């Protein structure tokens, strides 16, 4: 019986250990696996210009 309890204790601690490893893996922030992300407002070869006649923004 003592042996069974010991095995259970080891299994539970092992599970906790794995859980903490998953938590640690989030420490460095990066895009989700397999996601191709374009962060910026445009591609590297495009320089945006402002359509002044189109722009109607700003807080009112």
């Amino acid at each position, binding site marked *: 019986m003592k042996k069974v309890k010991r095995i259970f204790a080891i299994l539970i601690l092992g599970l906790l250990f794995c859980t903490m490893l998953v938590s640690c893996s989030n420490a460095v922030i990066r895009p989700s696996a397999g996601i191709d992300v374009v962060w910026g407002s445009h591609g590297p070869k495009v320089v*945006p210009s402002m359509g002044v006649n189109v722009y109607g923004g700003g807080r009112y």
Partner: protein
Amino acid sequence: MLICILAFGSVLVNELSAQPMVTDVSENQVVAPETYGNIVWYTLVTPNLQESAAFYGNIFDWDINSAEVRGQKVALVRHQGRPIAGIVEISGADAALWVASVSTPSVKEITGKFTSNGGRVILKAFNIQNTGKQVILEGPLGEKLGFIENPAHPVSQLTNGPQQWIWTELWSTNTDLSRGFYQKVFNASITENEKTDKPYWFINKGGQNVGGIIPNPAEGARSQWVPYVNIPDIPGFYAGLKATNARVLLGPESGYRDGSIVVFEDPHNALLCVQKL
């Protein structure tokens, strides 16, 4: 058994030591009350935190404290001691971007709403101490928007003063699609702005306008949420901005709304607007 306990203890110590990613803030600061559905936080994603921090510390009256923990570079932005934004370095990012974050009771729930309506997850939920649990999602036109659960220091773009956030607009390449999408995921009403002859819609939550949607005026730019900072002295700010390597898209000389708005790209191509209210 002993090995397991030691290993577990070691991981726990590492986890705790990773917590002070940013320094603590004063307990007696004034923070706006949290309202679900409002934009309450801003995070700059940048490929180079050091350069971005230097730029924004130069053009605004902001104090920026950087930290690096286990290879993750982060920073907390304060104005007069009050936290107003975060900065995260993602070395693989092709450009910088200001990401507005909306207060939500459940990051998990809003992530489900977004993805089931055509959005996707860009950054899985993460937590920087003194900010709150966040996730960065992408709308159907590629625009990024954050959601933050239990924000530690919610800001209010509706009541903020000088040098702080006052507004956020979606500059959309397809306003019909955007209005339909955000009406669903925000459970909000979209109302037309009658104060301008140009197309402009308000996102209205509980009778309050919490953001805007306009046709994207930046030719060549993708759809994106663009924030505004309150600057009372536009000529002074503009003179300082022109001395940097920012790229101005709209200056006060345009005369638009009496020259009260400046639109520019920071050195890493993040779009930002300043406005005198």
